[in-house]
């Protein structure tokens, strides 16, 4: 399990919406176009594969930064949203 910072810059409204919808399923939006996702290798590959279908490489720009456990502990947050923690099962 690694924490991935995923950022995007997408000029087309339609594609941007699709990408952000997909990322909502895998992580938390921490800024308008910055997501934090805690994923294992399989889920990370799955996410990238699905993203690939929704972006246009000529116009869009995405970045994936994996953070190691050590680095994760030294993250500083100034302002609102706390650092994403691992999701657990949900009980309603």
């Amino acid at each position, binding site marked *: 399990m690694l924490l991935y910072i995923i950022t995007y810059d997408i000029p087309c409204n339609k594609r941007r919406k699709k990408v952000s*919808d*997909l990322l*909502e*399923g*895998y*992580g938390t939006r921490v800024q308008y176009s910055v997501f934090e996702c805690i994923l294992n290798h399989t*889920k990370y590959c*799955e*996410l990238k594969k699905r993203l690939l279908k929704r972006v246009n490489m000529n116009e869009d720009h995405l970045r994936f930064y994996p953070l190691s456990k050590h680095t994760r502990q030294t993250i500083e947050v100034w302002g609102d949203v706390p650092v994403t923690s691992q*999701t*657990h*099962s*949900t*009980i*309603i």
Partner: protein
Amino acid sequence: MKSLYVSQQGCYLSLSQEQVLIKKGQTTLNQAQLPLIEQILIFGKSQVTTQLIHTCLKKEIPILYLSRMGYCYGRVLPIQRGYRYLSRYQQVLTPLDRLLVAQAIVTAKLKNSRVFLMRHHRSHPSTNLEMAIQQLDYLITKVSCTESTEQLLGTEGAGAAIYFSAFGDCIQNPDFIFIARSRRPPGNPINAMLSFGYQVLWNHLLSLIELNELDPYQACLHQGHERHAALTSDLLEEFRAAIVDSLVIYMINRKMIDSDQDFEFIEGGCYLNEVGRRKYLQAFLIRMEEIIGVDKQPRWDSLMRQVKKFREFVYSPSRKYQPYLIR
């Protein structure tokens, strides 16, 4: 294993992009990220939209429909999950292979029950416990002499009777009393908690068995038939004392559950009510997500490991099956 448990009644689950929205009336109670969920358990009367069912089928996320006390009515699974490719190997297992595995499972169950009682005997000694521990010791030596599954089931039944006769001595909360195990229906709060716990764990195990492409209807100890996923019951035996019984005792002794407020009586049986169910599931999850062992894995992982071990055994029966032991 990330699961979505819906234990409240009258919820409405729908899909919004990659998220599951859980609504009750107009208010959204919660949302869950669908790609990260491994299964959905619905206790009682909550609705799931067809769109969500379709997506779950596509993503191979099983949806389990259970009664409020945990009995499983059925599951929604994609068709391809039904093709169990290891089934052929399971069918050619010889009766001797099966008996040896069944013996190993019963031994593990008795040993785990014994360890459980011994732990309580250490903190709260009683002659009743001491006797049960000795009797279990004796039965453990008997298991390897059994020659048929019927005989083995007899030994197992005797073990369970001894174990449950001493089980009440582990309770340190005067609000609860336990005399004997009763089920269908469970007669008192402790039996209600045990039954519910076994059912929940049973269903989790069944999902893992399916996930590993094993045929849950082909078993070693229990008699499988078209309606009883006997392999699940087989693998459950090793975990009863280790997971469910210890959790029940823990919750009672720590006064995490209330004998008046958290139960309801319906038609002569005692069941957890909505609040009780929630408390129980919460405690269950905390326990299953606890990191244990030398390899620092959540307790969930020990279930998965056993299913994988059984799978290895099916591939090469000579390698034997190693059941789960508390220590």
